[in-house]
Protein backbone atom coordinates (compact mmCIF):
# COMPACT_ATOMS: atom_id res chain seq x y z
CA UNK A 1 0.00 0.00 0.00
CA UNK A 2 1.58 3.32 -1.00
CA UNK A 3 1.34 6.21 1.36
CA UNK A 4 0.95 8.98 -1.16
CA UNK A 5 -2.60 10.26 -1.28
CA UNK A 6 -4.86 8.59 -3.80
CA UNK A 7 -7.43 10.65 -5.51
CA UNK A 8 -10.19 9.27 -7.60
CA UNK A 9 -8.53 10.14 -10.84
CA UNK A 10 -5.50 8.01 -10.14
CA UNK A 11 -7.64 4.91 -10.11
CA UNK A 12 -8.44 5.36 -13.75
CA UNK A 13 -4.82 5.89 -14.78
CA UNK A 14 -4.43 3.68 -17.82
CA UNK A 15 -1.72 1.17 -16.89
CA UNK A 16 -2.88 0.50 -13.33
CA UNK A 17 -6.46 0.53 -14.55
CA UNK A 18 -5.82 -2.23 -17.02
CA UNK A 19 -4.15 -4.51 -14.50
CA UNK A 20 -6.90 -3.90 -11.96
CA UNK A 21 -9.57 -4.60 -14.48
CA UNK A 22 -7.84 -7.77 -15.59
CA UNK A 23 -7.50 -9.00 -11.99
CA UNK A 24 -11.09 -8.08 -11.30
CA UNK A 25 -12.44 -10.00 -14.30
CA UNK A 26 -10.22 -12.89 -13.31
CA UNK A 27 -11.75 -12.93 -9.83
CA UNK A 28 -15.31 -12.82 -11.16
CA UNK A 29 -14.54 -15.71 -13.49
CA UNK A 30 -12.88 -17.58 -10.64
CA UNK A 31 -16.02 -17.15 -8.54
CA UNK A 32 -18.21 -18.47 -11.35
CA UNK A 33 -15.73 -21.27 -11.83
CA UNK A 34 -16.06 -22.18 -8.14
CA UNK A 35 -19.81 -22.43 -8.54
CA UNK A 36 -19.42 -24.80 -11.46
CA UNK A 37 -16.72 -26.74 -9.67
CA UNK A 38 -18.89 -27.25 -6.63
CA UNK A 39 -21.58 -28.59 -8.90
CA UNK A 40 -19.16 -30.91 -10.70
CA UNK A 41 -16.88 -32.10 -7.92
CA UNK A 42 -18.94 -31.92 -4.77
CA UNK A 43 -16.51 -33.94 -2.68
CA UNK A 44 -13.62 -31.51 -3.05
CA UNK A 45 -15.82 -28.55 -2.23
CA UNK A 46 -17.22 -30.32 0.81
CA UNK A 47 -13.74 -30.92 2.11
CA UNK A 48 -12.87 -27.26 1.62
CA UNK A 49 -16.08 -26.25 3.34
CA UNK A 50 -15.42 -28.58 6.24
CA UNK A 51 -11.89 -27.23 6.73
CA UNK A 52 -13.00 -23.62 6.74
CA UNK A 53 -15.93 -24.35 9.04
CA UNK A 54 -13.50 -26.13 11.39
CA UNK A 55 -11.33 -23.04 11.46
CA UNK A 56 -14.26 -20.81 12.33
CA UNK A 57 -15.82 -23.16 14.87
CA UNK A 58 -14.08 -21.79 17.98
CA UNK A 59 -15.10 -18.24 17.10
CA UNK A 60 -18.69 -19.16 16.32
CA UNK A 61 -18.93 -21.32 19.42
CA UNK A 62 -17.75 -18.48 21.63
CA UNK A 63 -19.84 -15.88 19.82
CA UNK A 64 -23.09 -17.81 20.03
CA UNK A 65 -22.91 -18.39 23.77
CA UNK A 66 -23.67 -14.83 24.94
CA UNK A 67 -26.78 -14.74 22.78
CA UNK A 68 -27.91 -18.09 24.12
CA UNK A 69 -27.35 -16.89 27.67
CA UNK A 70 -29.40 -13.77 27.08
CA UNK A 71 -32.21 -15.76 25.52
CA UNK A 72 -32.19 -18.26 28.38
CA UNK A 73 -32.49 -15.37 30.78
CA UNK A 74 -35.44 -13.94 28.87
CA UNK A 75 -37.07 -17.36 28.82
CA UNK A 76 -36.58 -17.64 32.59
CA UNK A 77 -38.36 -14.36 33.14
CA UNK A 78 -41.25 -15.43 30.96
CA UNK A 79 -41.42 -18.72 32.80
CA UNK A 80 -41.46 -16.99 36.21
CA UNK A 81 -44.34 -14.84 35.13
CA UNK A 82 -46.48 -17.83 34.29
CA UNK A 83 -45.48 -20.23 37.05
CA UNK A 84 -48.88 -21.01 38.50
CA UNK A 85 -50.49 -21.64 35.14
CA UNK A 86 -47.55 -23.74 34.01
CA UNK A 87 -47.79 -25.77 37.18
CA UNK A 88 -51.44 -26.64 36.63
CA UNK A 89 -50.80 -27.62 33.04
CA UNK A 90 -47.88 -29.78 34.09
CA UNK A 91 -49.96 -31.62 36.70
CA UNK A 92 -52.62 -32.46 34.14
CA UNK A 93 -50.03 -33.54 31.62
CA UNK A 94 -48.33 -35.67 34.24
CA UNK A 95 -51.46 -37.68 34.93
CA UNK A 96 -51.99 -38.17 31.23
CA UNK A 97 -48.41 -39.27 30.72
CA UNK A 98 -48.59 -41.74 33.57
CA UNK A 99 -51.53 -43.35 31.83
CA UNK A 100 -49.52 -43.48 28.61
CA UNK A 101 -46.64 -44.99 30.51
CA UNK A 102 -48.83 -47.83 31.64
CA UNK A 103 -50.09 -48.40 28.09
CA UNK A 104 -46.51 -48.27 26.76
CA UNK A 105 -45.35 -50.85 29.28
CA UNK A 106 -48.15 -53.18 28.31
CA UNK A 107 -47.35 -52.75 24.62
CA UNK A 108 -43.68 -53.28 25.25
CA UNK A 109 -44.36 -56.58 26.94
CA UNK A 110 -46.70 -57.62 24.14
CA UNK A 111 -44.09 -56.56 21.57
CA UNK A 112 -41.38 -58.57 23.26
CA UNK A 113 -43.48 -61.71 23.28
CA UNK A 114 -44.49 -61.25 19.65
CA UNK A 115 -40.88 -60.72 18.64
CA UNK A 116 -39.96 -63.87 20.43
CA UNK A 117 -42.68 -65.69 18.55
CA UNK A 118 -41.47 -64.44 15.15
CA UNK A 119 -37.76 -64.76 15.96
CA UNK A 120 -37.47 -61.11 14.96
CA UNK A 121 -33.90 -59.69 15.01
CA UNK A 122 -33.88 -56.35 16.82
CA UNK A 123 -32.27 -53.21 15.40
CA UNK A 124 -28.77 -52.52 16.59
CA UNK A 125 -29.04 -49.85 19.23
CA UNK A 126 -28.01 -46.33 18.45
CA UNK A 127 -25.44 -44.12 20.11
CA UNK A 128 -26.05 -40.42 20.49
CA UNK A 129 -23.59 -37.56 20.19
CA UNK A 130 -24.82 -34.31 21.69
CA UNK A 131 -23.91 -31.20 19.76
CA UNK A 132 -24.50 -27.50 20.09
CA UNK A 133 -25.76 -25.36 17.26
CA UNK A 134 -23.19 -22.65 16.63
CA UNK A 135 -24.25 -21.43 13.24
CA UNK A 136 -27.83 -20.96 12.25
CA UNK A 137 -27.48 -19.80 8.71
CA UNK A 138 -31.18 -19.88 8.04
CA UNK A 139 -30.76 -17.81 4.97
CA UNK A 140 -33.45 -17.35 2.44
CA UNK A 141 -32.54 -20.32 0.30
CA UNK A 142 -30.47 -22.60 2.49
CA UNK A 143 -31.70 -24.37 5.54
CA UNK A 144 -28.73 -25.73 7.41
CA UNK A 145 -27.10 -25.66 10.83
CA UNK A 146 -23.48 -25.71 11.90
CA UNK A 147 -22.70 -27.94 14.89
CA UNK A 148 -19.67 -27.81 17.12
CA UNK A 149 -18.91 -31.54 16.93
CA UNK A 150 -17.10 -33.27 14.11
CA UNK A 151 -15.39 -36.47 13.10
CA UNK A 152 -13.30 -36.49 16.26
CA UNK A 153 -16.44 -37.16 18.28
CA UNK A 154 -17.67 -39.74 15.80
CA UNK A 155 -19.95 -37.70 13.55
CA UNK A 156 -20.18 -39.11 10.02
CA UNK A 157 -21.79 -37.90 6.85
CA UNK A 158 -25.33 -39.12 6.41
CA UNK A 159 -26.21 -39.51 10.08
CA UNK A 160 -29.58 -38.41 11.36
CA UNK A 161 -29.83 -35.43 13.70
CA UNK A 162 -32.68 -35.25 16.18
CA UNK A 163 -33.91 -32.95 18.91
CA UNK A 164 -36.35 -33.63 21.72
CA UNK A 165 -39.31 -33.23 19.36
CA UNK A 166 -38.22 -35.26 16.38
CA UNK A 167 -36.02 -35.39 13.32
CA UNK A 168 -34.10 -32.23 12.50
CA UNK A 169 -32.15 -33.25 9.41
CA UNK A 170 -29.14 -35.07 8.07
CA UNK A 171 -25.40 -34.46 8.39
CA UNK A 172 -23.98 -33.42 5.02
CA UNK A 173 -20.49 -32.06 5.71
CA UNK A 174 -18.12 -33.23 8.39
CA UNK A 175 -14.91 -31.57 9.51
CA UNK A 176 -12.67 -32.54 12.36
CA UNK A 177 -14.41 -30.24 14.82
CA UNK A 178 -17.56 -29.11 13.09
CA UNK A 179 -20.31 -30.50 10.95
CA UNK A 180 -23.14 -29.16 8.87
CA UNK A 181 -26.71 -30.41 9.10
CA UNK A 182 -29.13 -30.06 6.20
CA UNK A 183 -32.53 -29.38 7.72
CA UNK A 184 -35.41 -31.41 6.43
CA UNK A 185 -37.05 -28.27 5.09
CA UNK A 186 -34.19 -27.53 2.71
CA UNK A 187 -35.04 -27.92 -0.93
CA UNK A 188 -32.29 -30.51 -1.36
CA UNK A 189 -33.35 -32.65 1.56
CA UNK A 190 -34.76 -36.11 0.83
CA UNK A 191 -35.60 -38.36 3.77
CA UNK A 192 -37.08 -41.87 3.39
CA UNK A 193 -40.14 -42.00 5.62
CA UNK A 194 -43.12 -44.18 6.31
CA UNK A 195 -46.67 -43.07 7.09
CA UNK A 196 -47.43 -44.81 10.35
CA UNK A 197 -50.96 -46.01 9.92
CA UNK A 198 -50.73 -47.29 6.38
CA UNK A 199 -47.06 -48.32 6.50
CA UNK A 200 -46.73 -46.69 3.08
CA UNK A 201 -43.19 -45.69 2.24
CA UNK A 202 -42.43 -42.32 0.70
CA UNK A 203 -39.72 -39.68 0.46
CA UNK A 204 -40.04 -36.46 2.45
CA UNK A 205 -38.84 -33.59 0.28
CA UNK A 206 -38.23 -30.11 1.61
CA UNK A 207 -39.71 -26.96 0.10
CA UNK A 208 -37.71 -24.26 1.92
CA UNK A 209 -40.22 -21.93 3.53
CA UNK A 210 -43.28 -24.09 3.07
CA UNK A 211 -43.77 -27.32 5.01
CA UNK A 212 -42.24 -30.37 3.29
CA UNK A 213 -44.28 -32.77 1.21
CA UNK A 214 -44.17 -36.47 0.38
CA UNK A 215 -42.90 -37.81 -2.92
CA UNK A 216 -43.02 -41.30 -4.41
CA UNK A 217 -46.06 -42.47 -2.49
CA UNK A 218 -47.27 -45.78 -3.86
CA UNK A 219 -50.34 -45.25 -6.04
CA UNK A 220 -53.61 -45.87 -4.27
CA UNK A 221 -52.47 -45.19 -0.70
CA UNK A 222 -55.07 -43.48 1.40
CA UNK A 223 -53.58 -40.86 3.69
CA UNK A 224 -55.64 -38.81 6.10
CA UNK A 225 -54.59 -35.57 7.79
CA UNK A 226 -53.32 -36.36 11.26
CA UNK A 227 -51.33 -39.44 10.24
CA UNK A 228 -47.94 -39.69 11.87
CA UNK A 229 -44.84 -39.75 9.70
CA UNK A 230 -41.68 -41.47 10.92
CA UNK A 231 -38.37 -42.42 9.33
CA UNK A 232 -38.42 -45.75 7.52
CA UNK A 233 -34.76 -46.60 7.90
CA UNK A 234 -34.28 -47.22 4.19
CA UNK A 235 -30.78 -46.52 3.05
CA UNK A 236 -29.41 -47.70 6.33
CA UNK A 237 -28.01 -44.55 7.80
CA UNK A 238 -31.16 -43.46 9.60
CA UNK A 239 -32.66 -45.53 12.37
CA UNK A 240 -36.29 -46.35 11.65
CA UNK A 241 -39.02 -44.97 13.85
CA UNK A 242 -37.73 -41.43 14.45
CA UNK A 243 -40.72 -39.15 14.57
CA UNK A 244 -40.72 -36.63 11.77
CA UNK A 245 -44.08 -34.92 11.78
CA UNK A 246 -47.77 -35.11 11.14
CA UNK A 247 -49.71 -34.95 7.86
CA UNK A 248 -51.64 -31.69 7.77
CA UNK A 249 -53.21 -31.74 4.36
CA UNK A 250 -53.79 -34.08 1.47
CA UNK A 251 -54.83 -32.65 -1.83
CA UNK A 252 -53.76 -31.37 -5.20
CA UNK A 253 -50.62 -29.87 -3.76
CA UNK A 254 -49.61 -33.29 -2.53
CA UNK A 255 -49.34 -34.61 0.98
CA UNK A 256 -48.04 -31.83 3.23
CA UNK A 257 -46.30 -32.76 6.46
CA UNK A 258 -45.80 -30.44 9.41
CA UNK A 259 -42.54 -31.34 11.17
CA UNK A 260 -42.66 -31.70 14.96
CA UNK A 261 -39.42 -29.82 15.48
CA UNK A 262 -39.51 -26.04 15.98
CA UNK A 263 -36.50 -25.11 13.95
CA UNK A 264 -36.13 -21.65 15.44
CA UNK A 265 -35.44 -22.92 18.94
CA UNK A 266 -32.66 -25.41 18.40
CA UNK A 267 -29.70 -25.03 20.69
CA UNK A 268 -28.68 -28.60 21.53
CA UNK A 269 -29.30 -31.50 19.19
CA UNK A 270 -28.24 -35.14 19.09
CA UNK A 271 -26.51 -36.85 16.21
CA UNK A 272 -27.60 -40.47 15.92
CA UNK A 273 -24.66 -42.79 15.37
CA UNK A 274 -26.64 -45.73 14.12
CA UNK A 275 -25.77 -48.24 11.51
CA UNK A 276 -22.01 -47.84 11.48
CA UNK A 277 -22.14 -46.87 7.84
CA UNK A 278 -23.67 -50.06 6.52
CA UNK A 279 -27.25 -51.19 6.01
CA UNK A 280 -28.37 -53.47 8.86
CA UNK A 281 -27.95 -57.19 8.08
CA UNK A 282 -31.38 -58.55 8.72
CA UNK A 283 -30.78 -62.06 7.48
CA UNK A 284 -28.06 -62.94 9.98
CA UNK A 285 -30.23 -62.61 13.05
CA UNK A 286 -27.18 -61.61 15.07
CA UNK A 287 -26.70 -58.33 16.86
CA UNK A 288 -22.92 -58.12 16.83
CA UNK A 289 -21.75 -54.53 16.53
CA UNK A 290 -18.51 -53.57 14.88
CA UNK A 291 -16.59 -50.86 16.70
CA UNK A 292 -17.07 -47.44 15.14
CA UNK A 293 -14.05 -45.96 13.33
Amino acid sequence: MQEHPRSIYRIVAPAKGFVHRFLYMGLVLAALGLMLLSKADAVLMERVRAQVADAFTPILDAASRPMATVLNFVDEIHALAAVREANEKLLIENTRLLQWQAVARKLEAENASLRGLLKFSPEPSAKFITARVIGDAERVFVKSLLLNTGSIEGVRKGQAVISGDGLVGRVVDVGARSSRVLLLQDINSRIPVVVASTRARAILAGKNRQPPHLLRLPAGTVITPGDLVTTSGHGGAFPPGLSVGRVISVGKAGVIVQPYVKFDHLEYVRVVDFSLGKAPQRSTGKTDRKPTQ
Partner: protein
Amino acid sequence: MKPAFWHKLDLWARWSTPFGLTVVLLIVGVIPLHVPGFGVVVPWLPLMAVYHWAIYRPELLPAYAVFIIGVLEDILSGLPIGVNAVIFLLIYGGVLSQRRFFVGKSFNILWLCFALVASGASAANWLLVSLWNATMLMPHTLFFQFLTTVGLYPVLAWILMRWQHTFLREE
Protein backbone atom coordinates in the same frame (compact mmCIF):
# COMPACT_ATOMS: atom_id res chain seq x y z
CA MET B 1 14.35 2.84 12.62
CA LYS B 2 12.22 1.58 15.47
CA PRO B 3 9.57 4.30 15.44
CA ALA B 4 9.18 3.78 11.69
CA PHE B 5 8.63 0.05 12.25
CA TRP B 6 5.93 0.55 14.88
CA HIS B 7 4.39 3.25 12.76
CA LYS B 8 4.29 0.90 9.79
CA LEU B 9 2.78 -1.83 11.97
CA ASP B 10 0.15 0.57 13.21
CA LEU B 11 -0.71 1.55 9.66
CA TRP B 12 -1.00 -2.07 8.55
CA ALA B 13 -3.29 -2.80 11.47
CA ARG B 14 -5.50 0.12 10.62
CA TRP B 15 -5.59 -0.74 6.95
CA SER B 16 -6.70 -4.27 7.63
CA THR B 17 -9.71 -3.14 9.67
CA PRO B 18 -12.18 -2.80 6.78
CA PHE B 19 -11.58 -6.43 5.89
CA GLY B 20 -11.60 -7.46 9.54
CA LEU B 21 -14.81 -5.60 10.26
CA THR B 22 -16.53 -7.20 7.28
CA VAL B 23 -15.52 -10.66 8.49
CA VAL B 24 -16.88 -9.82 11.96
CA LEU B 25 -20.17 -8.74 10.40
CA LEU B 26 -20.21 -12.00 8.48
CA ILE B 27 -19.88 -13.98 11.71
CA VAL B 28 -22.58 -11.93 13.39
CA GLY B 29 -24.89 -12.77 10.52
CA VAL B 30 -24.40 -16.49 11.04
CA ILE B 31 -24.77 -16.74 14.83
CA PRO B 32 -28.02 -18.42 15.84
CA LEU B 33 -30.49 -15.90 17.19
CA HIS B 34 -33.32 -18.23 18.23
CA VAL B 35 -36.04 -15.72 17.43
CA PRO B 36 -38.93 -17.47 15.69
CA GLY B 37 -39.05 -16.64 12.01
CA PHE B 38 -36.32 -14.06 12.34
CA GLY B 39 -33.66 -16.12 10.70
CA VAL B 40 -34.91 -15.41 7.25
CA VAL B 41 -34.88 -11.66 7.73
CA VAL B 42 -31.32 -11.36 9.02
CA PRO B 43 -30.03 -8.26 7.22
CA TRP B 44 -27.31 -8.89 4.70
CA LEU B 45 -24.54 -7.25 6.72
CA PRO B 46 -21.48 -8.03 4.55
CA LEU B 47 -23.24 -6.46 1.57
CA MET B 48 -23.59 -3.19 3.46
CA ALA B 49 -19.95 -3.27 4.47
CA VAL B 50 -18.68 -4.02 0.95
CA TYR B 51 -20.82 -1.20 -0.45
CA HIS B 52 -19.57 1.25 2.18
CA TRP B 53 -15.88 0.47 1.83
CA ALA B 54 -16.12 0.41 -1.96
CA ILE B 55 -17.33 3.99 -1.86
CA TYR B 56 -15.02 5.37 0.78
CA ARG B 57 -11.88 3.24 0.92
CA PRO B 58 -11.68 0.84 -2.00
CA GLU B 59 -7.90 0.74 -1.73
CA LEU B 60 -8.26 -0.88 1.69
CA LEU B 61 -10.66 -3.52 0.46
CA PRO B 62 -9.19 -4.75 -2.82
CA ALA B 63 -11.00 -7.09 -5.16
CA TYR B 64 -9.36 -10.23 -3.81
CA ALA B 65 -10.49 -9.33 -0.27
CA VAL B 66 -14.06 -9.00 -1.55
CA PHE B 67 -13.69 -12.38 -3.24
CA ILE B 68 -12.47 -13.99 0.00
CA ILE B 69 -15.36 -12.47 1.94
CA GLY B 70 -17.85 -13.77 -0.62
CA VAL B 71 -16.43 -17.28 -0.46
CA LEU B 72 -16.40 -17.20 3.38
CA GLU B 73 -20.02 -16.14 3.47
CA ASP B 74 -20.92 -18.98 1.13
CA ILE B 75 -19.06 -21.52 3.23
CA LEU B 76 -20.48 -20.40 6.56
CA SER B 77 -24.05 -20.09 5.39
CA GLY B 78 -24.19 -23.29 3.39
CA LEU B 79 -24.78 -21.73 -0.03
CA PRO B 80 -23.00 -23.13 -3.08
CA ILE B 81 -19.47 -21.74 -2.96
CA GLY B 82 -19.07 -18.81 -5.28
CA VAL B 83 -22.58 -17.35 -5.26
CA ASN B 84 -21.88 -14.54 -2.84
CA ALA B 85 -18.39 -14.10 -4.27
CA VAL B 86 -19.89 -13.28 -7.66
CA ILE B 87 -22.53 -10.99 -6.16
CA PHE B 88 -20.11 -9.05 -3.95
CA LEU B 89 -17.57 -8.69 -6.74
CA LEU B 90 -20.20 -7.35 -9.10
CA ILE B 91 -21.40 -4.86 -6.48
CA TYR B 92 -17.82 -3.84 -5.76
CA GLY B 93 -17.02 -3.35 -9.43
CA GLY B 94 -20.22 -1.48 -10.09
CA VAL B 95 -19.79 0.90 -7.17
CA LEU B 96 -16.13 1.50 -7.98
CA SER B 97 -16.87 2.41 -11.55
CA GLN B 98 -19.49 4.92 -10.39
CA ARG B 99 -17.41 6.28 -7.55
CA ARG B 100 -17.11 9.66 -9.21
CA PHE B 101 -20.87 9.99 -8.87
CA PHE B 102 -20.79 9.41 -5.12
CA VAL B 103 -18.39 12.22 -4.29
CA GLY B 104 -20.08 14.89 -2.21
CA LYS B 105 -23.55 13.38 -2.36
CA SER B 106 -25.78 13.43 0.70
CA PHE B 107 -26.40 10.35 2.78
CA ASN B 108 -29.92 9.88 1.45
CA ILE B 109 -28.60 9.52 -2.07
CA LEU B 110 -26.17 6.91 -0.85
CA TRP B 111 -29.00 5.11 0.92
CA LEU B 112 -31.15 5.17 -2.19
CA CYS B 113 -28.33 3.81 -4.26
CA PHE B 114 -27.79 1.14 -1.67
CA ALA B 115 -31.45 0.15 -1.96
CA LEU B 116 -30.91 -0.22 -5.69
CA VAL B 117 -27.75 -2.23 -5.16
CA ALA B 118 -29.42 -4.46 -2.57
CA SER B 119 -32.35 -5.20 -4.84
CA GLY B 120 -29.95 -6.14 -7.61
CA ALA B 121 -27.95 -8.32 -5.23
CA SER B 122 -31.09 -10.07 -3.95
CA ALA B 123 -32.27 -10.73 -7.49
CA ALA B 124 -28.84 -12.06 -8.45
CA ASN B 125 -28.82 -14.26 -5.35
CA TRP B 126 -32.18 -15.74 -6.28
CA LEU B 127 -31.14 -16.26 -9.88
CA LEU B 128 -27.79 -17.89 -9.11
CA VAL B 129 -29.14 -20.24 -6.44
CA SER B 130 -32.09 -21.20 -8.64
CA LEU B 131 -29.73 -21.94 -11.51
CA TRP B 132 -27.39 -23.93 -9.32
CA ASN B 133 -30.23 -26.02 -7.94
CA ALA B 134 -31.85 -26.22 -11.36
CA THR B 135 -35.25 -25.36 -9.86
CA MET B 136 -37.27 -22.18 -9.57
CA LEU B 137 -37.15 -20.99 -5.98
CA MET B 138 -39.76 -18.83 -4.26
CA PRO B 139 -38.52 -15.25 -4.30
CA HIS B 140 -41.02 -13.68 -1.92
CA THR B 141 -38.98 -14.25 1.23
CA LEU B 142 -36.12 -12.36 -0.40
CA PHE B 143 -38.25 -9.26 -0.20
CA PHE B 144 -38.29 -9.26 3.61
CA GLN B 145 -34.56 -9.69 3.79
CA PHE B 146 -34.25 -6.81 1.32
CA LEU B 147 -36.40 -4.62 3.56
CA THR B 148 -34.43 -5.33 6.73
CA THR B 149 -31.14 -4.90 4.89
CA VAL B 150 -32.10 -1.52 3.46
CA GLY B 151 -33.67 -0.50 6.75
CA LEU B 152 -30.60 -1.31 8.80
CA TYR B 153 -28.17 0.32 6.38
CA PRO B 154 -28.15 3.77 8.07
CA VAL B 155 -27.19 2.24 11.40
CA LEU B 156 -24.35 0.25 9.94
CA ALA B 157 -23.20 3.11 7.74
CA TRP B 158 -23.05 5.34 10.81
CA ILE B 159 -20.99 2.76 12.71
CA LEU B 160 -18.59 2.28 9.82
CA MET B 161 -18.27 6.04 9.34
CA ARG B 162 -17.38 6.51 13.01
CA TRP B 163 -14.80 3.77 12.70
CA GLN B 164 -13.40 5.36 9.60
CA HIS B 165 -13.11 8.79 11.20
CA THR B 166 -11.50 7.39 14.31
CA PHE B 167 -9.01 4.95 12.87
CA LEU B 168 -8.58 5.66 9.19
CA ARG B 169 -8.33 9.38 9.22
CA GLU B 170 -5.09 9.78 7.28
CA GLU B 171 -6.00 10.34 3.67
